[in-house]
């Protein structure tokens, strides 16, 4: 590199390193005196400043990424002291991977002056975690409530196609978060920001940093010596807080993702920068190729399974049942090997391998089946315009019958035909076929319908006998069967837990589980238990919802930030018949029928009560329905009120007097 270019680069870098929002000593002292921040008065800590700077450079023919991390955090409460214990993880590679230039300090108020306690040089620990994964650990000294901790380090590694995600939103509020990228101009990349704030571009970095706008960007191409520079800053970031009824918190976190689109260095091939290219890559991958091949060895097993059945749906069900029952998923004896015969003979493999066999068997039975790659609720959803391959971590089967897709996952013996485990419904997915197709896997594809019949009789003056037949919906049946597996097949414990949920002072008489080994049917639980009568020799009172649909209002918070999300649509029906002690009559008139609805009847609760004096029987029918899986947060008050009203109704008591 020529001297002039070197000098220019050095000057530019100097400018860059000085032109940032890193705190001055004066600012730190002011913040030391601050005990509460308007951005979140309840916060245990506030990130005063955060910077992630990435510098991609070509060194000896390969791209190396140097990531500089700098954080300044104000500790407000003791439970945030863990922020002072820092671990940095890195994989060892054949090029240099390590943590460099580690610096840190803790600031405290000492009277009116500021005391700085530096992290002593070399005061860190390096350990090998497992295989080639390492960590460097350090802990800031003198950290306590009110302290400000500050640390920075460089992390060096080979450059990958996907750049580090900018986690804009985290558990603590942030006053300033910066992300910058200095990269060779032969590389181009794309970014996608998940944020409520509109990003505004400024002509200079200083203007971006000082602007009142809360999401700012600055770009300088041909910055120096064949490098481009992009800088983002986000200000006043509220923390993300967990709320109930959110399927995947990660999808709601504010963040920015970057992916290299292509690099044009000599004759390098562009990255998979479209879903079409992704599909092509997957279509040519071993698992997809093997799943569509014809196999002689499969003929006999398939014939044994389907026999002479010509109906596509029943053939598919039979094959699915076979794979589900006979293959075990878990640690694969042959990781990465998608040879269908090997997996078939082992009867074991990863989820990806087992579903490859399922797809191969369906295709070999004359059906049409494709792999479908999906993200799960353990991670962020894939985006339609942003093919991040590593986000699609799971593979299931997309079966086509009469132009409709049926989704199948044979990885667990309790999975249901046509219903995948709930964690699979995480948004954007890809069917890997010749042309490829996008699919949205949303919870509103799922519906669970359950019913319960309860019969109560009073064989004596003090005891009542409760007989319950509960028929679970298909989704809850699958969940319950998996719970039963976890209880180490001790049915009694499982039942005991169910009974305790219904009545804490119940004494079990009989119990029975039906269809436990038939995953494509409804699980039925039959219970009979005794409990004390509600009343005495002269009066009897019953709660019209002795088995409440909602024992507690699940929506307790006064406010809501995130949408309310349900994992599936549901219908619950309950039929209660109570045969009273002889001679009982209602004290007052019975309650009128109740209808409580919300949101164009998407949420509905209905109850009716009838009295049959000749049989001394009260009959109560209840139906609850929820037909929508996502409600925006502006509907939250209505949802909370709906549940409150249902609970009020469920708490009503009818009194009966005995002659």
């Amino acid at each position, binding site marked *: 590199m020529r001297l002039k270019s070197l000098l220019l680069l050095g000057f530019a870098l100097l400018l860059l390193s000085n032109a940032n929002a890193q705190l001055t000593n004066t600012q730190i002292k002011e913040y030391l005196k601050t005990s509460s921040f308007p951005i979140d*008065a*309840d*916060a*245990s800590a506030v990130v005063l400043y955060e910077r992630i700077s990435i510098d991609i450079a070509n060194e000896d023919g390969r791209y190396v990424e140097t990531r500089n991390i700098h954080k300044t955090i104000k500790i407000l*409460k*003791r439970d945030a002291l863990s922020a*002072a*214990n820092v671990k940095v993880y890195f994989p060892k590679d054949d090029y240099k991977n390590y943590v460099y230039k580690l610096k840190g300090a803790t600031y405290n108020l000492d009277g009116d002056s500021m005391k700085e*306690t530096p992290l002593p040089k070399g005061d860190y*620990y390096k*350990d*090998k*975690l*497992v*295989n080639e994964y390492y960590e460097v650990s350090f*802990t800031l*000294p*003198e*950290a*306590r409530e009110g302290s400000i901790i500050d640390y920075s380090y460089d992390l060096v590694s080979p450059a990958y196609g996907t750049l580090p995600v900018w986690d804009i939103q985290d558990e603590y509020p942030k006053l300033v978060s910066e992300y910058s990228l200095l990269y060779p101009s032969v590389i181009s990349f794309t970014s996608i920001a998940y944020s409520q704030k509109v990003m505004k571009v400024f002509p200079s970095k200083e203007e971006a940093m000082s602007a009142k706008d809360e999401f700012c960007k600055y770009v300088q191409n041909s910055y120096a010596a064949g490098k481009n520079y992009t800088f983002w800053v986000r200000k006043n970031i509220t923390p993300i*807080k967990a709320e109930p009824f959110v399927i995947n918190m990660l999808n709601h976190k504010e963040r920015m993702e970057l992916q290299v689109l292509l690099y044009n260095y000599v004759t390098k091939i562009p990255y998979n920068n479209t879903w079409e290219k992704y599909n092509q890559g997957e279509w040519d991958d071993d698992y997809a190729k093997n799943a569509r091949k014809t196999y002689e060895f499969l003929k006999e097993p398939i014939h044994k399974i389907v026999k002479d059945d010509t109906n596509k749906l029943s053939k598919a069900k039979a094959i699915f049942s076979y794979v589900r029952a006979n293959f*075990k998923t878990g*640690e694969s004896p042959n990781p990465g090997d998608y040879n269908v015969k090997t997996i078939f003979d082992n*009867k*074991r493999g990863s989820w990806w391998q087992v579903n490859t066999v399922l797809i191969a068997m369906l295709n070999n039975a004359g059906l049409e089946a494709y792999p479908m790659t999906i993200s799960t609720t353990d991670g962020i959803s894939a985006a339609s315009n942003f093919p991040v391959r590593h986000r699609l971590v799971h593979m299931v089967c997309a079966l086509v019958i009469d132009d409709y897709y049926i989704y199948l996952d044979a990885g667990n013996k309790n999975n249901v035909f046509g219903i995948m485990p709930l964690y699979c419904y995480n948004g954007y997915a890809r069917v890997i076929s010749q042309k490829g197709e996008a699919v949205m896997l949303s919870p509103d594809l799922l519906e669970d319908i359950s019913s319960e019949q309860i019969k109560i009789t009073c064989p004596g003056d*003090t005891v009542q006998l409760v007989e319950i037949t509960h028929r679970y919906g298909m989704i809850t049946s699958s969940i319950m069967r998996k719970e039963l597996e976890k209880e180490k097949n*001790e049915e*009694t414990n499982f039942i*005991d837990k169910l009974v*305790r949920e219904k009545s*804490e*002072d119940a004494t079990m008489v009989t119990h029975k589980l039906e269809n436990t080994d038939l995953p494509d049917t409804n699980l039925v639980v039959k219970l009979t238990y005794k409990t*004390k*009568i*509600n*009343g*005495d020799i*002269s*009066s009897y*009172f019953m*709660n019209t919802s002795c088995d*409440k649909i*909602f*024992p*507690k*209002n699940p929506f*307790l*918070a*006064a406010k809501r930030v995130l949408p309310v999300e349900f994992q599936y649509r549901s219908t619950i029906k309950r039929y209660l018949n109570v045969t009273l002690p002889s001679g009982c009559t209602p*004290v*007052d008139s019975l309650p009128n029928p109740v209808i409580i609805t919300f949101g164009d009847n998407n949420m509905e609760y209905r109850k009716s009560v009838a009295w049959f004096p000749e049989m001394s029987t009260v009959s109560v029918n209840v139906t609850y329905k929820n037909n929508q899986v996502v409600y925006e947060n502006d509907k939250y008050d209505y949802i909370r009120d709906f*549940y409150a009203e249902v*609970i*009020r109704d*469920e*708490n*009503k*008591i*009818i*009194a009966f007097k005995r002659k």
Partner: protein
Amino acid sequence: MSLKNICLLALVTFIFTNNIHAGEQKFPVSAIPDSLLKNAHAVMRLYDARYVINGPAEYTVSERYVVTVLDEKGTGFGNCTEYYSKGNSIDDLNGFLYNKEGEEVKKIKRRDIVDVAAYGSNFVTDYRALLHTFGAHQYPYTTEYEVEKTYYSTLSLASWTAVPGLHCSVQQATVSVEYPLDYPLRFRSKSLPVQPVVATRDGQHILTASLMGFKALKDFDEISVDADMHMPGIVLACDTFSLFGTNGSMATWKDFGRFFYQLNDGRDVLTPQMKATVHQLTDTCTSNQQKINVLYQYLQKNTRYVSIQLGIGGWQTFDATFVCEKKYGDCKALSNFMKAMLKEAGIVSYTTLARVGSPDLLPMNPEFPYNIFNHAILCVPTPTDTTWLECTSASTPAGYLSNSTSDRKVLVGTPEGGVVVSTPTYGPETNVLIRKAELVLNDKNELSGKVSLNYGGLFWEREHANVIDAPRAALDKHLSTVLGFSDYSIAEATARTATEGKIPFIKETMNITATAEANASGSSLMLNTRMFPLLPVPSSRADTSTSKFQLHKSYCMKDTVIITLNGNYAPSTPFKDVDITYPFGSYHLSYTINGKTLTKTSVYTIKAGIYSGDQFANLKKMRGESIGTSRNMVVLGKL
């Protein structure tokens, strides 16, 4: 006999005495007796451990364990997990996989052994583990591992546990411990049907023990008796030991305490600035107790717990100057730092060794010193009392010990040696929950008013993390779950800590509006007065009619509910007061009504202890009385 034959004989003898596995000894599944299959997910076919103690500074352990895994839930028993650190090394590891006929199908490969850091709850440690699994999936299968380890310290002689865990039977487990004639080894066995035997051979003592045909244990539950939860085995200890080159004696608890004291002696020197701070804080105090409280609060506000366990640092504390400068440390370092501050203030205290959680084999025994410890606290004796200090806690008040360190024997390290003492045991007067609701019932069957909840002792421990320093939203959310109503809203909720004597309390107050379970019609009113939830009855899978059970903690719950009604009422049927007492506890319930005011008081008490199985039905009955609707539903007639 010719030289050649002698060599041949020696070789054959060597082969057989070293139990070469392959082809010589099979473990077909069919050879497992049926009695060992019940409740078992795995069967330990053979466990042979050989200890060779060369002296106080080193001993070796050779182990061979053969496990048949019966089903998926037993997989963990068939894997290999061996720990090591600076204090020991793993010299050799071999493994084999057999099918159900007992034929070898696979052998361990070095590249399949995974070496991982074993942090546990430590921030930094030198503990690591070697892990291996054959990844077999066709059940049943059998694995065999042979391990050779060397230990460089006999402070913690690895005790022998014959049973690897619940749901695992043992067909044959044997142990032999070879040690020099003059080596002061001691042992205690636990639940072994045949007592260990010590013989003398070739100038060595050999201790041998075995366990045969042990049937798998099912899960323990909340009321299992502590003593029954210990696995069969042998605890080993020696009177003299070496720890990273430092020699010590464990012949008596006094000796061991002295060793620990001397190992850490002289490390309690403060920096001049810290000394000045101590005097600044305490010179105006009027009593030693006040000094203790002030310095303890300083420790809690200014230091934090960070566990760094490296080498001898697992036993020897960081200097007090380290904590002075960095303001963090583990339990030993923080206790030592506190001790140094007290010393500067003229108060004597002693770092004390304790065991947190249940030990695997034996609890601390005054007659049998052995290393059982995993925690350090501080003992500050005063003429009339002892103040215990938990130096790793930012919230525990001085003098109080939490559930993890109370009610047990500990070893106080004094210059004269160790002293075994008992930490406080807290009864129902300490572990007390006092709840009071003063509510008004309106015409819409809503109850509104004030609720106060006071959590003491054990209840304080459980409640503390939920409320203190919790964000407003989290506090409100938690308080929305502490009452027995299906739906209620809260306002003006507060939560603060308080101390009464040495007992910590959390005091919560809130105004609520709740949906009552009620029916008012014409002249009568039915109302469910159960406002507060109870702790659940411990569950038990045992046949409690024949076995004993244990209630582990004493506690008392006192509830008062005062409801102002919307009219003058009298009971339509007499109130069902309750007054029952059993050996394990009692429950008292009473109602009074005076015009518009209905008052319900109840006291529910549990006493810790071991009780005969036939009392369990009474325990369930007592709880049934407290939660049953018939006791909580009142029917009132309007006057």
